C-alpha cells in the first residue's frame, strides 16, 4: 500500500492519512482478560483531502470506514500510521495539543438522537464548543443565534431540548455545533443515514451550501453510494479495512475497475423502473468475512465473482498469496485488484 490517491489540485492537501491501522484486541471474559484475538478494523488506509473538497468514504458495515474517521480525529487512538493536518502529525500529539487542533477538525455523527446531550437546551449544545475553547465571550449569544438561523432553525426555539425536535432538525443542530468553531475539515459520519429521504435531501443541500460559503473540506463517510455520488468530488471504496478503489466520482461510476465496486454499484436499486429492470448486474455471494480473521491476499476473493468464475487456477493463487496494491493498472484510477478491468454498469 505505497501508492496513495492524489488530490486533483496542485495545492498541498489539508489532511493526509498515511497507512492508518487500527486494531482492536479481542479479550477473554473473566478476571484476567487475556487477549485472544485482534479485530483488523482498519489496515493501512491512505488518502488525501484537499481544501474545499469532499471525499466520500464508502463501504458496508464492518468495512472500517467509521473507525477510520474516528482514528484520524484521535477519538480512538490509531494503532499505527500517520495523519497530517496542514503538515502537523496528529496521532502522536498529547491530549492538550490535540485539543487546540480540534477547533479545525470537527465531526457530525450518524445518530441525531444519541449525539446531542438530552439534558441541555439547544442554545447550550451549540454554545458548548465556544465555551470549551473560551470563545463564548460577549458575542457568543449572537453567534449561536446566527448559527441556528443558518441551519434553518428558529433561534427562539433555542431554549428547547433536543427531544422536542424532529430527526432532521436534530441533525441540523449537530451540524451547527460542529460549525461553531469555524473548522476547516468536517468529518461527516453517516450524517443522513438515520433520516427519511425527503429530510435527508435538506441536510445534503445544507452541507453543500455551507461548504461553498465556509470553504470546508468534507470527509463524508457513508454506506450509501447514491448519496456519496451526489455529494462527493472523489470517492474511496473500503472493504474489510482496506481501500479497494478510489477515483473521482465520474471515473468510479463510468468505469468501476474493482469487482467489489462493481458489485456495490449493481446492488443499489435505481428509482427508475425501466432502467432498473434492464440493468446488467455483477452480484456477489455470501457475507463479509469477520475482520477478526480476514482472508489472506486479496480480502475480497472469498466473495469475488471474478475469482470464482473467470480466473484460472494460477491466477487465483496470486489473489490468495498477494495483497493487491492500490495502483492504476490502466483504468485511469487506482484499484486494488490484480485483474482490474473497467466496467460500465449504469
Amino acid at each position, binding site marked *: 500500500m505505497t501508492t496513495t490517491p492524489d488530490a486533483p489540485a496542485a495545492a498541498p492537501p489539508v489532511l493526509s492519512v498515511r497507512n492508518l491501522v487500527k486494531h482492536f484486541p479481542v479479550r477473554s471474559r473473566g478476571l484476567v482478560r487475556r487477549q485472544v484475538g485482534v479485530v483488523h478494523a482498519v489496515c493501512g488506509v491512505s488518502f488525501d483531502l484537499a481544501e474545499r473538497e469532499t471525499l466520500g468514504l464508502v463501504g*458496508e458495515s464492518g468495512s472500517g470506514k467509521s473507525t477510520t474517521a474516528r482514528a484520524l480525529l484521535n477519538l480512538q487512538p490509531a494503532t499505527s500510521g500517520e495523519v497530517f493536518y496542514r503538515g502537523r502529525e496528529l496521532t502522536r500529539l498529547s491530549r492538550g495539543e490535540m485539543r487546540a487542533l480540534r477547533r479545525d477538525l470537527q465531526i457530525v455523527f450518524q445518530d441525531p438522537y444519541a449525539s446531542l446531550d438530552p439534558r441541555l437546551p439547544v442554545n447550550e449544545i451549540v454554545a458548548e464548543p465556544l465555551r470549551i475553547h473560551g470563545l463564548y465571550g460577549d*458575542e457568543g449569544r*449572537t*453567534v449561536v443565534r*446566527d*448559527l441556528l*438561523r*443558518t*441551519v*434553518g432553525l428558529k433561534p427562539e426555539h433555542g431554549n428547547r431540548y433536543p427531544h422536542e425536535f*424532529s430527526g*432532521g432538525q436534530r441533525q441540523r443542530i449537530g451540524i451547527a455545533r460542529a*460549525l461553531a*468553531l*469555524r473548522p476547516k475539515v468536517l468529518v461527516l459520519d453517516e450524517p443522513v443515514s438515520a433520516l*427519511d*429521504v*425527503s*429530510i*435527508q*435531501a*435538506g441536510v*445534503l*443541500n*445544507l452541507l453543500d*451550501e*455551507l461548504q461553498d*460559503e*465556509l470553504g470546508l473540506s468534507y470527509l463524508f463517510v457513508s*454506506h*450509501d453510494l*447514491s*448519496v456519496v*455520488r*451526489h*455529494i462527493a468530488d472523489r470517492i474511496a471504496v473500503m472493504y474489510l479495512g482496506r481501500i479497494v478503489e478510489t477515483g473521482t466520482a*465520474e471515473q468510479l*461510476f463510468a468505469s468501476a475497475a474493482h469487482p467489489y465496486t462493481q*458489485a*456495490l*454499484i*449493481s*446492488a*443499489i*436499486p*435505481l*428509482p*427508475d*423502473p425501466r*432502467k*432498473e429492470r434492464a440493468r446488467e*448486474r455483477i*452480484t*456477489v*455471494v*455470501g*457475507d*463479509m468475512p469477520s475482520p477478526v480473521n480476514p482472508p489472506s491476499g486479496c480480502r475480497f476473493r472469498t*466473495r469475488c465473482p471474478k475469482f470464482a468464475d473467470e480466473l484460472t487456477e494460477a491466477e487465483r493463487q496470486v489473489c490468495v498469496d498477494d495483497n493487491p496494491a492500490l495502483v492504476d493498472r490502466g483504468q485511469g484510477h487506482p484499484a486494488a485488484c490484480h485483474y482490474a478491468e473497467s466496467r460500465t454498469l*449504469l
Partner: protein
Amino acid sequence: MTPAGTGAEDVLGAGSMNGSAPPDGTVLEVEGLTVGFPSDEGLVRAVRGVSYTLRGGEVLGIVGESGSGKSVTSLAVMGLLPGNAQVTGSVRFRGQELVGASDATMTKIRGRRVAMIFQDPMTSLNPVYTVGFQIAETLLAHHDMTKAAALDRAAELLDTVRIPNARARLDSYPHELSGGMRQRVVIAIAMANDPDVIIADEPTTALDVTVQAQIMDALDVARRATGAAMVLITHDLGVIAGQADRVMVMYAGKPVESGTAEDIFYTPRMPYTLGLLGSLPRLDRASARLTPIPGAPPSVVNMPPGCPFSPRCPIAQPVCDETEPELTPTTSAEHTAACHFSAELAGREAHELFETTVSDADALAEFVRETEDQSS
C-alpha cells in the same frame, strides 16, 4: 381500482365465507381500513382509510416514510396488532372477512395462506430451536407428513433460497447465521406452506446493499416457486422500482397516490410523490440539486382538516386546508392521486416546484463576520 361496485362485492364477500376466490383472481381485498391507538393525547390515527386489491401473482409496493402507516396497515391485515388497537373497515382474503375474525380462523390463514416477512428476522425466529426444526414445525403444523419428510422438504427450501450446504444448515441455530442468512431462513419458512400472499415489511432495511440484492433475489425465487402475490412494504423507492407491478404511496396514514410503477415514477400526480422522487440522490446521473420537502409529516393525533400534505406543499391553495382530497383518477383510471390540483403537475419537474436552498444566507453571512477572527 376496485372492479365493479362495492355493494355487489359486499354481497359476494358475505356469501363466500368458505373461501372461494372472487372471479377476477383477487386474493386480498382491503377496503376502508382504519387503525387507531388510544393514547393520553387522543386517538393516534395511524391508518386513516386504506383500500387496495391484490391480484394473484402480482407485486404491490407500498412506499412511505416513517410514520406513514405502511407497516401498521399490514399488521392490521394479518391481525397482528396489539389488543388496544381499534380496527375498522374490511380485509378479505379470497372473499373471507379477516377483520374481527376469530383467533382460530386467523391462525389457519396466517402462515398457511398469508405469510409475513419482517425487517428483523429475529422477530420471527426462535433463538432456542434449530433452523431445521423451525421450518419442519411450520410444515407439520399445516400438513400431514412424517418428521423426516418435513426435514427433507426444509433442506429443499433452504436450497431454493440459495443457502449453501442447506442440509448442514438445518442443525444451525439462528444466532450462528448472519443477518442475510437469517432473512433467507425466514423466507424459506414463508414459502413452506405454499402461501397465496407474502407480505414483506422492509425485508432488507437492516441489511447491507450487497446482501440486500441477494435477499431480493431470494424473495423473487420464493414468489415464483409459490406463485404467491406479494405486498412489499419499503421506504426505498429503488427497491419498489425494481420489484413492484403496482405502487401505493402513503402519507400520514392514507394512500396519496396509486398506480403502476411507471405511472408513479414517470408521471407522478401528487406533489408529495414528486418531491420524494426529487429528493433522492441518484446513482445513475451526476448531481442535480435535490428538492427537500420542507417541514415534517404531521402528527396523526388530532389532525386538522384538509390535506395532510398542505403545510409542506408548494402548490397548496386555501381549499387544501378545508377539504381532504380523495384518490381520483388522473392519467388513467388505474392511476389515482389525492390532490385537488394534480392536473397542474403534468410535465412539471420537482425543482420547478420545491425550493432547493435550505440555509439562511443572511444568517450565514452574519456568522461568518462574527467568527472571522477565530477562523484565521
